[in-house]
């Protein structure tokens, strides 16, 4: 009767096992430093331009939307505060994570999937190295380092975007008031959740990408399927986790 539950639970179990092994491996010799830096370059530096672009426009959109709502109450001076809070708490982490999920969960899944179907993962095991250690751990660590950094950049660029709309374009407020408002509205609570979220998302994106890549079966078609599934599953979990984390922080 509960057969339909079996497969998602098995997948979740595999996810937890992979997470455990990848984390334990990060403190166990041998270390693959070169792979780690290569991944940090691919994920971090490679995603920087698009993160900046998206961050900027989310700030712009937020300020534009708020300009109308705030003018109804004559509170246009608060635009800096609202932009900063929404970006740091929610928009920055979630949008960046979704972007990286689309860009890198798919990239990881297709790379590992192709390696799986062309027997390279088996070859790696047969040649005496642990694929989790060689492939998963560097990707996980690289993601955990770069995603929070990318989020911070997106947040900052977003606030700059909001400034561009609020001050030079619509003249809602003065520059000093905008920055003052934005700066003073951020509390430790906001910063904490704004940094914990990307760290959790990094785990989800890297491990979901690796898991679906390493489970790939069925040739090139399987690689396509694995890639799609990785992006969808990672995106869904990003929303679930952000809801849970927000729920916790709202009460703090």
């Amino acid at each position: 009767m509960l057969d339909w539950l079996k497969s998602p639970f098995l997948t979740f179990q595999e996810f937890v096992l992979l997470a455990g092994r990848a984390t334990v491996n990060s403190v166990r010799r041998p270390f693959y430093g070169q792979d780690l830096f290569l991944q940090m370059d691919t994920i971090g530096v490679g995603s920087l331009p698009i993160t900046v672009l998206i961050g900027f426009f989310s700030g712009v959109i937020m300020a534009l939307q708020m300009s109308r709502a705030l003018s109804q109450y004559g509170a246009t001076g608060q635009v800096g505060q609202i932009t900063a809070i929404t970006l740091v708490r929610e928009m920055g982490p979630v949008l960046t994570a979704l972007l990286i999920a689309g860009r890198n969960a798919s990239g990881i899944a297709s790379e590992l999937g192709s390696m799986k179907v062309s027997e390279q993962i088996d070859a790696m095991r047969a040649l005496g190295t642990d694929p989790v250690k060689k492939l998963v751990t560097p990707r996980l660590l690289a993601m955990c380092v770069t995603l929070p950094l990318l989020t911070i950049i997106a947040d900052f660029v977003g606030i700059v975007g909001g400034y561009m709309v609020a001050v030079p374009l619509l003249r809602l407020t003065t520059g000093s008031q905008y920055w003052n408002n934005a700066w003073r509205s951020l509390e430790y609570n906001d910063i904490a959740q704004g940094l914990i979220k990307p760290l959790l998302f990094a785990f989800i994106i890297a491990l979901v990408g690796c898991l679906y890549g390493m489970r790939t079966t069925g040739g090139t078609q399987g690689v396509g399927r694995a890639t799609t599934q990785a992006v969808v599953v990672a995106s869904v979990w990003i929303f679930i986790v952000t809801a849970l984390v927000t729920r916790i922080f709202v009460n703090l």
Partner: protein
Amino acid sequence: MARQKANAPRCILKFEDVSLQFDQPRPALDRVSFEIWSGETRIILGAAGSGKTVIMKIALGLLKPSSGRVSVMEQDVTHFDERQWYDVRSHIGVLFQEGGLFDSLTIEENVAYPLLNQARFMTAGKKPTLDSVRPDVQDALNFVELGNTLNKFPSELSGGMRRRVGIARGSVADPDLFLYDSPTAGLDPITANTIIALLIKDREMRNSTAAIITHRFQDGHLMANFRYNPEKDCLEKLAADSPIRERTKFMVMNEGRLVFEGSESALDASQDPYISKFSMNPARKAS
């Protein structure tokens, strides 16, 4: 390359009643037992899906048998976990069907991979450098006559060349057992014979133990009847009483079961319609 193994014969690979059952009703491997001794060349023949590759994957610990016992180098490995297997695997060379080369690494890095990543070559947990293993890598690539491809990527090589790089990668760490999975599949007859010539050369130069999975009966015939002549750098036919004939054993798989095990002459003499499909006897092949 010509390091000699200990002379006392020892059992390199032993299967005892090994079965493997996937979800299908028919087992992938059905109570298979055999032994491979040092210095032996084992030719594993069989149709596609008969369980040849499954044998290889079990011998490497990539698949776990459902029942039975597996021993590698006189060590029971049936219940080894993944970490214990890494040490066992570092003594086994392997050539995968399509070569299994890492396409993000150069040929040099591919061949150096076992030397750089296996725990037994590390000193105090530190990996050797690529420079320090370069002479060994160059030797292994010279052996397969691809000494000038160090900086190329696998995608720049032909199918036959990729197999040869796979052989170099498998033999660079001087393994006690070399498993070849369909070394000649999908190659033209001339390239296929070049690959088999390399296998024969490897057998003679390293006195190696090998299991060769193939569906081409010619591969087994060449292995059993020819030797490598280092002076002339070519293959020549073996004398009728050469011990190499004795040390080349054949086995035939059919639907997960081991249906034949013995010498080439016994294979040629078999009356069984399935088994005789893999023998050189032209009269029976016609039937």
